[in-house]
């Protein structure tokens, strides 16, 4: 379905920076909305079978999104994203931190920058994550592990039924 769409993922370990580039088969306005509106973000912003749930989101400079990633067992991992700069439809920056369910942030976090550009009906999104720490990545991924194992088990069951 998306074989022709660009996907790049690079890590500069020495600069503690992750670079992600992806193309989408849609116009810039729509893609911008998918990244900046809570009701759309919650529909794709966590890798299945995890899901995302936004408690509130004020998309404005100084505003925040307080949301959780929830695994199939119902475990929640809360994060706060604080918007530090917004240029509508083109660019936004945020500071991302883990938090508890009462919105107490665990410093330090990481800086994220998103850039959007459209060409021939496709929109390219460039994401830069600065100062992401390995420890944070580990925490972020701990929740996913259970989810992934589950998916694989489901798949095995399905394959068994089919064969």
């Amino acid at each position, binding site marked *: 379905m998306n074989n022709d769409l660009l996907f790049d993922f690079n890590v500069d370990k020495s600069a503690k920076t992750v670079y992600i580039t992806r193309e*989408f088969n849609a116009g810039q306005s729509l893609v911008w909305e998918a990244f900046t509106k809570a009701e759309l973000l919650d529909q*794709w912003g966590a890798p299945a079978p995890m899901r995302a749930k936004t408690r509130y989101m004020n998309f404005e400079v100084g505003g925040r999104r307080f949301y959780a990633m929830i695994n199939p067992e119902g475990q929640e991992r809360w994060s706060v994203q604080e918007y530090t700069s917004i240029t509508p439809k083109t660019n936004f920056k945020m500071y991302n931190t883990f938090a508890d369910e009462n919105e107490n942030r665990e410093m330090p976090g990481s800086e994220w920058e998103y850039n959007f550009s459209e060409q021939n009906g496709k929109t390219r999104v460039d994401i830069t994550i600065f100062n992401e720490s390995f420890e944070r990545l580990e925490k972020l*991924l701990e929740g996913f592990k259970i989810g992934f194992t589950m998916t694989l088990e489901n798949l095995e069951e399905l394959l068994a039924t089919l064969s």
Partner: protein
Amino acid sequence: MKQDIFHAISDPTRRAILTLIAIQALTPNAMAEKFDMSRQAVSKHIKVLHQCELIKPVQSGREIYYHFNAIKMKEFDHWLAQFRQNWETQFNQLDQLLSTIKEQQS
């Protein structure tokens, strides 16, 4: 405080130390000599690298030799691969969402 692996390898001297001991285990004194640094400065770097388990000390007689811990580096690469996989999954989800919205609009 536990050191972060990203922080550990963000320093050029520490990367140089890792490159060097990946080839051959060294004592702190030998490192100080090779990098023309004080023993104190070397000790600081060793502490950071050791705390995130990128190097491991092995006692040999009266000397301590530091070895490169390749497993830890692999573990790190493994985590990054998973991080990438998560993004890929999410972006595929977004592809579907975008095409659904476009169908509804047309």
